[in-house]
């Protein structure tokens, strides 16, 4: 699954800070390999990217990222339990067929999981839906309802309910805006003011 949003990636720097040095990473929907390149440089971390688009595979090969062409919707059965320190998926979970199943599979192959997604509960989305009466089109969610890859959008609250139902422990959470900035407001009202949610998870 190529990441749903290829423009600004405010979540990547946070992930970089969260990941322990020399870790082994599986990056689901690795796109052109930006995150893995960053992690290699800044964290001496190694790993593999899964990516569905051949054009992105070519970019990964060009930059020297280990990329495996794969469809995330078919699951992670090629990977053993706890094969990675982290299974990471940035802004792609909302684009897979069954986010719940994939999340559980990620928690199987990774000792920890980091996911990021666009927060559908952000005030801009809420205002557009409430006052405009139409599906939100925002800088983080630029597509129209009929051509978007984002078929399973959720809010922080929705996501945390899924975690609770599946026995998933939230180790760390942060929300950022497009410029990778966070604010007091965002800390107090993450589900209202956070544009991108970043979670670190573990099986309970």
């Amino acid at each position, binding site marked *: 699954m190529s990441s749903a949003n290829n423009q600004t990636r405010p979540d990547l720097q946070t992930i970089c800070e969260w990941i322990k040095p020399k870790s*082994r990473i599986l990056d689901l929907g690795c796109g052109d390999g930006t995150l893995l390149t960053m992690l290699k440089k800044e964290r001496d971390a*190694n790993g*593999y990217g899964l990516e569905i688009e*051949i*054009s992105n*595979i*070519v970019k*990964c*090969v*060009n930059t*020297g990222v*280990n*990329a*495996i*062409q*794969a469809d995330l919707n078919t699951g992670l059965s*090629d*990977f*053993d339990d706890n*094969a990675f320190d982290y299974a990471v998926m940035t802004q792609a979970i909302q684009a897979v067929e069954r986010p719940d199943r994939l999340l559980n599979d990620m928690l199987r192959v990774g000792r920890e999981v980091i996911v990021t997604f666009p927060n559908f509960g952000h005030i801009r989305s809420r205002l557009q839906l409430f006052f405009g009466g139409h599906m939100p089109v925002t800088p983080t969610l630029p597509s129209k309802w009929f051509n978007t890859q984002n078929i399973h959008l959720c809010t922080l609250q929705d996501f945390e309910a899924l975690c609770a139902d599946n026995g998933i422990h939230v180790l760390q959470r942060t929300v950022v805006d497009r410029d990778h900035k966070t604010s007091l407001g965002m800390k107090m009202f993450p589900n209202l003011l956070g544009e991108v949610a970043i979670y670190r998870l573990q099986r309970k």
Partner: protein
Amino acid sequence: MPDTLPENSIGLVTAQTMHFDVPLDLASGHRLDSYELIYETYGELNADHSNAILICHALSSDHHAAGYHSMEDRKPGWWETCIGPGKVIDTNHFYVVCMNNLGGCKGSTGPASINPETNKPYGPDFPIVTVKDWVESQARFADKLEIQTWLAVIGGSLGGMQVLQWNIDFPERVKHAAVIAAAPKLTAQNIGFNEVARQAIMHDVDFHEGRYYEHDTSPRRGLMLARMLGHITYLSDDAMREKFGRELRQGTISYGFDVDFQVESYLRYQGESFVDRFDANTYLLMTKALDYFDPAADFDDDLSKALSSARADFLVISFSSDWRFAPERSREIVKALLDNNHDVCYAEVVVPHGHDAFLIPIKDYLDVFGAWMGHLVDEVSS
């Protein structure tokens, strides 16, 4: 016949032969006291011999991987698509080597060669050789060329199996490895196809238990059938539908058993032209080498364990419509490499062409392959 050769072709090439006197002990327990290997090279070997690339060939191909033998040649070598100046395997940078495997019929010692013990062609007495035997003979060949480490070992199909074997038997001698449209072992279905091909050859009245050379004949009909069957499995259903559909050759149905459909005509042509350029005993031998290939068998049937000492960084490519060596089989290889934390990139190219896709200039395929080879260019240029 080209009047002028294409600019991106390596051009006219000449095969060379290398003689070996040190006996080669084979997996079967037999020994070859002496043998010859025919090979071609393209490009220049650099001063520290660090730019050599070994190309391993598939079932029915040979050492003639690129270029033309003469201006009269109708077709270039079998991997002209990928090998040449400015091509993916760029002969401006690399010294590319391809040999005809032992047991072949294009100049390396094989069943049609003279057995020094009898002064007659070996025929069925030529020992069955395995992928492991080939790799051993290739390693000895590399020694003679003074190539300690291959910059890359590359192969498609049965050639890809040799690449795997290289990384198991001589991991320290391979820096990069490309395994294309291959499998870690054959499925029962694959072995089944090979067996039908062999039966077709062996049931030909001209087979003479493999000693047909002495009868001045060859099992043409059997080999033709074997090739026709093989050819169906190398194409996909879609590729055949697109290429032939149900198109009739003469426009009407003949209500007889002659050729009605274009696909029949095509397969007969493929079969007949193959008979003129290939030896039936070699076909038997090569299909057996395919059937027997199972490197994990020596490692508790664990491919990950078999590849644990590999050091190369890998490129694995499969083709979506290849049902002979399906993408799932390539993913088994990828998994074994992942288990060992080896460097690997894997591309599953979406194409309708079937197994033969690895010989065809397909953009996505050449893009990935070219990007990977680009790093090798950097390595030898720096």
